[in-house]
């Protein structure tokens, strides 16, 4: 049995569910918004066992061979938030228990929550990426305007973005921002060397690598300011050694599915910006036709990894 946990209408969850159906795999789709009547018994010693009881039946956790998880914070889900405090706290307790199971089960979990956590701090993750031999853009986090001025002078063009996993629009720093430098003192802010070139999104699912080239004149191609800046996304093949490095990076972060953001400069240097451990791959799949969901489904169907013992 393969567990899918999240929102059924969430595009990646729906795509993986459909791909598993094409493979004829038995799936338990656990809708995070509908926790009514759900019960969970979890028992952990050297083994991990338990029972998940749903209105439609029960499932022994030991029979789960794999899981694809994209849970949201329960309190932010309208269907839960709008109901009673009791429902909300029960949903949070259920999330916590199932996340705990995801950490200890020998089943293949895409991805384990603790492995995904590096994405909550961009400079922390960047140091891990750099440690795996990738060039990363020089990054400064500071509360000090003088240090920022020196960094800006060193690089000529820089951008700023959130430090945490909270999504933000990457924005170029311009002289008009100077009037806001006094605000720096209130909260550390992240600045980054601007790297010219084309973006590449690389999805790694196990051994499968899917790359696409993203061309856009926008500073952040996810947020174009005009139709002219709309990203053009084309499938491509990475140099074999770079594809291997992407696989190794995912493995080093203990992640079985990742979306890696690379940029290639005009003189051919590759920089790595970020590793997304829960990629919204369908955005790219729909444009490129790359069978990413199928690759994830195959990975989930391949059962417990050889090194599936919990570490």
């Amino acid at each position, binding site marked *: 049995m393969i567990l899918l946990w999240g929102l059924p209408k969430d595009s990646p969850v729906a795509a993986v569910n459909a791909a598993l159906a094409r493979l004829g795999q038995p799936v338990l789709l656990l809708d995070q918004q509908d926790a009514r009547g*759900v*019960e*969970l*018994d*979890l*028992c*952990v*010693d*050297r083994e*991990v066992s338990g029972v998940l009881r749903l209105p439609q039946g029960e499932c022994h956790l030991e029979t789960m061979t794999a899981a694809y998880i994209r849970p949201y914070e329960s309190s932010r889900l309208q269907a839960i938030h709008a109901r009673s405090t009791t429902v909300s706290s*029960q949903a949070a*307790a*259920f999330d*916590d*228990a199932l*996340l*705990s*199971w995801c*950490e*200890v089960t020998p089943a293949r979990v895409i991805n384990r*929550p*603790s492995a995904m*956590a*590096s994405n*909550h*701090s*961009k*400079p*922390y*993750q*960047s*140091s891990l990426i*750099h440690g795996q031999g990738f060039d*990363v853009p*020089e*990054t*400064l*986090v*500071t*509360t*000090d*305007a003088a*240090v920022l001025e020196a*960094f800006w002078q060193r690089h000529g063009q820089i951008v700023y973005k*959130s*430090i*945490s*996993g*909270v999504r933000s629009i990457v924005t170029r720093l311009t002289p008009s921002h100077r009037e806001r430098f006094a605000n*720096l*003192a*209130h*909260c*550390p802010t*992240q600045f980054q060397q601007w790297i010219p070139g084309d973006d590449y999104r690389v999805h790694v699912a196990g051994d499968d690598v899917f790359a696409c080239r993203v061309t856009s004149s926008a500073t952040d191609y996810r947020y174009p300011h005009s139709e002219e800046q709309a990203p053009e996304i084309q499938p491509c093949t990475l140099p074999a050694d770079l594809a291997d490095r992407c696989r190794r990076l995912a493995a080093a972060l203990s992640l079985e599915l990742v979306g890696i953001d690379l940029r290639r400069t005009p003189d051919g240097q590759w920089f790595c910006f970020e590793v997304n451990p829960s990629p919204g791959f369908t955005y790219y799949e729909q444009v490129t036709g790359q069978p990413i969901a199928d690759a994830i489904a195959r990975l989930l169907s391949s059962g417990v990894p050889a090194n599936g013992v*919990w570490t």
Partner: protein
Amino acid sequence: MIVVVASTYDVRAQRIVAHWGSHGATMLTAEDLCMPGWSLTVPKLIEPTAVIGGRTVPAAEIRGILTLRPCIFPEELQGFHSSDRKYVAAELNAFLLAWLSAQSCPVLNRPTACSLAGPNWRAEQWAHAAAGLGIPARSRRSLPNRDGVAHSEPSLNVIAVGEHCFGCDDSVLSDWTRQLARAAGVDLLSASYSIDRSRFLAANIWPSLSDPAVLAAVREMLESRR
């Protein structure tokens, strides 16, 4: 300087800093993170600087760091508008994780992606780790929790500070605690066991540091250059 990372409101941390006053111990609070003087580069271009106790400090001046919190909570950021607190807390936590990870001095416990100190394991993860080491342990959880009461039983507590153990003279329990600390990748750990000394019950990354002998061992570890 020894740095104690804690909330301004953490009385226990204030006592530790007072106890170590002669060793230059100072608290690093969320308020410090919101002052000019911080810098961190990735990859490392310049020596990181910090603001500790209101003063800008080069990283080289810090001999050791004791972290007494898993994260900064939005609720403690009273200086920010309530609608901004969650975002600011996420940013401060992300920064502090990167900054703590970049320090070469002893850090108890070293941060992980999941927590500013240690692995932030749930009860199941501790039980699984203990059982995997051959320590009798089991964790059970049933949801919904119908009786709504957390049951606890009397226990024996052992605190490990590196290879030193405190609180119980049982060599088996001490050995189990050291093994668990190694498995979790931490230097500071409290583990509790059943009174009959037969079973692991729970672990805590933030043990009571009220015992002067434990505090002395922690200080010694923080001052040992790695």
